[in-house]
């Protein structure tokens, strides 16, 4: 689809997410994309660019400032409204769920907005999955460290070998219907409380 001269501004304090979205928009021909990650001087940049579409994350702290600017700005030829085509409730709900908010210059036809918004939503969701994978990986790493510490505590205090210490943690986990990591956490906490940490 042709997007001749359509200017898209992506405002995101996460530069990683901003580039993931930009990447997604590469499918659209001849669009101009601007990425803004700084809160300082944001309005001046927007004024300079004069975007047709602004995409930003729903929770962006600058949204009230930006909405005020759109409401009163005389610098832009046309006012910018959020979700101009209000009949398209599904698209709006999908974008809110994905955490995208969009501001669109009044008059830009909805058949050009929709594919763009869909792309943004896909990209936001992809970023969210990436983030949760990362969090999970970090969590697993932290759990492994806790289990190692608990093993060392048992090896030291009960003179066990490493496999025996691990077996002990696992036995306790199974009998109390808990995860090994939770038992390990309890061992470490108890150890710290006894002033032996």
């Amino acid at each position, binding site marked *: 689809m042709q997007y001749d001269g359509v200017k898209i501004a992506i405002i995101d304090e996460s530069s990683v997410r901003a580039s993931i979205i930009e990447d997604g928009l590469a499918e659209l021909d001849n669009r101009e994309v601007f990425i803004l990650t700084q809160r300082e001087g944001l309005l001046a940049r927007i004024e300079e660019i004069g975007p047709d579409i602004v995409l930003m994350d*729903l929770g*962006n*702290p600058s949204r*009230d*400032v930006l909405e*005020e600017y759109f409401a009163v700005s005389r610098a832009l030829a046309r006012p910018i*409204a959020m*979700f101009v085509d209000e009949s398209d409730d599904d698209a709006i709900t999908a974008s*809110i*769920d994905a955490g995208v908010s969009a501001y669109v210059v009044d008059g830009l036809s909805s058949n050009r907005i929709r594919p763009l918004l869909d792309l943004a939503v896909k990209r936001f969701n992809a970023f969210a999955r990436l983030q949760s994978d990362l969090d999970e990986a970090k969590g697993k790493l932290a759990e492994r460290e806790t289990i190692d510490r608990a093993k060392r505590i048992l090896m030291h205090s009960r003179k066990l070998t490493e496999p025996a210490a691990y077996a002990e943690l696992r036995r306790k986990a199974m009998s109390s219907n808990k995860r090994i990591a939770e038992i390990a956490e309890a061992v470490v906490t108890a150890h710290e409380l006894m002033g032996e940490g």
Partner: protein
Amino acid sequence: MATRTLRIGFLPLVDACLPILAQEHGFAEEEGLSLSFVRDVSWATVLDRLLYGHTDAAHLLAPLAIATTLGRGRPAQAMSAPFVLGLNGNAITLSKALAAKVAEPGRLGDPRKLGAALKAEAETALASGKRLRMGVVHRYSSHNYKLRYWLAACGIRPDQDVEIVTVAPPFVADALANGEIDGACVGEPWNSVCVERDVGVIVLATAQIWRRGVEKVLAMREAVLDERRPEVEGLIRAMRKAGAHFVNPVNLELNCHILARPEYLNADRKLIARAVSDRLVLSHGAPPVHYPDFMFQHSEAANFPWVSQAAWLYSQMVRWDQLEFDADQARQATRVFRPDVYRNATQGTGDDLPAANSKVEGSVTRLTQVGAQQGNITLSSNNFFDGMTFDPERVQEYLASLP
């Protein structure tokens, strides 16, 4: 009783206290409710979540609920506010340089004198080709309306003599520090944060502009209110109990401790306590100044959604958005406030309940007992600093009489 969940959106401000404390102290549970909270940093986000069902109800700026109903700035959606979360609780903080020129050190100024001094400074700035710039938290906020009301009554024309811009509460201290703004009207604890960072001086409380001015409301889509009416009424009762707990000085420490938690305000407990105890530190290192009813969360049926309050907010929207007064819009605006729901919720609890739904705002100058459907209500002064009164039946005349 089966527990039903209500999701509540909020911004990290002290006046989000009532739903939070209703949950934390078990008052919600007594009503068979479990409240979960969604914290955001901009009102646009709080509103989006409310409109698209991420939350059921929210801590919201009262004028924003009205603006949303009237379709100002986005497609119209009918909103309802059956409970006022509090009156006032905001302050005006000026940069240290400006405060040194216009404010009396060590006390909250007289609004007229301060206004006159500020007018002189605004004129000096204009003469040298500059314009004082003041921050407010949102275009549709009582902060904006009270600041403009005060400025205009002091002969300072907002948008002409001084510029008024939007600054999100958490960024007010930064904006003062780097000279983006010369002052701001914002809720707590953000004025106190400016003082702690020594980038500003608190010079006026909004309660000095309008002694009993409406602030945040509990807002929801009208459709949600209809669908979940029993839960909403339970929430109203729970928040009334939370309010009684909140204003009891015995609970100050505990409540500030809860509000300070990372999932709520994520702020310094001691700063929160300043607003809650009406004892503000006006400038860095100064002793606290006691200003009674700085924020007003419970007594005198403070949570009752008087339709006259909604009418006043609509009058200010007409005034500053330069709209034509429209009787239909006025009706829609006042219908956002739902005293009928509040009444139904508290009927039979013995809680204070006024007999009327509307009053002449600013007309009470001394302790006055008012008609009550139940309980006993004595209103104290609710005046505007310039002595004007607002009759909700005569909005056009009122608007014509304003500067």
